[in-house]
């Protein structure tokens, strides 16, 4: 799934998977922090899904 999304133009690193067991609380927090930083660095999503401003698609009322 990650491959297909990147193949379709979603930037690298925007979709992340990790395997964290319920016991690994610390690692979970670590992974979340890491992903958040990485995605913040990528900036707003210019990729696949067009931004949905307030109101509906194009009329932007």
């Amino acid at each position, binding site marked *: *799934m990650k*491959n297909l999304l990147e*193949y*379709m*133009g979603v930037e*690298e690193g925007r979709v*992340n998977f*990790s395997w964290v067991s319920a016991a690994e609380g610390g690692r979970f927090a670590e992974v979340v922090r890491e992903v958040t930083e990485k995605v913040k660095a990528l900036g707003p999503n210019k990729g*696949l899904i067009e931004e949905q401003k307030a109101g509906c698609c194009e009329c932007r009322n």
Partner: protein
Amino acid sequence: MPELTGAIREAAKKLLDEKKVDVVIGFAPGSLPLRSTPCFVRRPEDAAGLLWNRSCENNLANYLRKRSDKAAVVAKGCDSRAIVELIKENQIDRENLFIIGVPCTGMIDRQKVARKLAGRELLAAEENGDNVILKGRDFSETVPAAELLHDSCLSCRHPNPVIYDLLVGEPLPEKEGVDFSDVNAFEAKSPAERRAYLTEEFSRCIRCYACRQACPMCYCEECFVDCSTPQWIGKSSEAQDNLLFQAVRVFHSAGRCADCGACERACPMGLKLHLLTRKMVKDVQELFGYDAGVNPEEKPALADFKAEDPQPFLIKE
């Protein structure tokens, strides 16, 4: 092809005469040049209506799901792969299905014919050995069939049915290795180029869902597109939603898609769906070494777990 047609008619008539099956699902002459149309033969004398040529492009496995009667089907390589996957998914009862296997030399792509004719109307066509004679109002051209075949037929690795009860005709030599040149070429482009191309391509999609309806593996009771609680995807025909629809449809075909190209053949707008479907087939092959519908005993990719399955997508420590 005439000898294949003869063999199929004979087999069908025999099956119906001996009441082994209630219906034989095959192809009959279409109403347009270079078109054949699926047909359901129930009386022995109607078996004479069956034929086999390079226009039998639909995947007949699509008609075999959850049948209550005993049916026989004329299946080419990709049809048989879809049948194998459907059997694994308990959609087909193997005992009630008689498969007439047909080695396939590839099916003609109407879009390529239209491009070759550049707008001139095709009034008649004849297959003559490895050539196709295209006739119109004031022209008659002979074209090698290989130039008109579907891309999915050109990269096909399983022309011979992988499963059958009766094989008509001689098995064809199978090409070795895999051919994902089209996917690799597209993958080589930059993400922005890919996104631009796909957005433009899917802006032409009219959401007629012919791809979904033609695909033997697409049989959900309620497709995610039709859901309203929650509404996963917009119902309007708008480039982003169209692309997302196709992407999620391809997600659902992971490890199940027999790469038969029925979706692309059904699309009235001629969209290059294989760019997405074959990317998934390639990934599943590379990651899990699984080729859908080839080995009836092998468990489907997503229904099995091996310790050494690669996990490049996971975040490392």
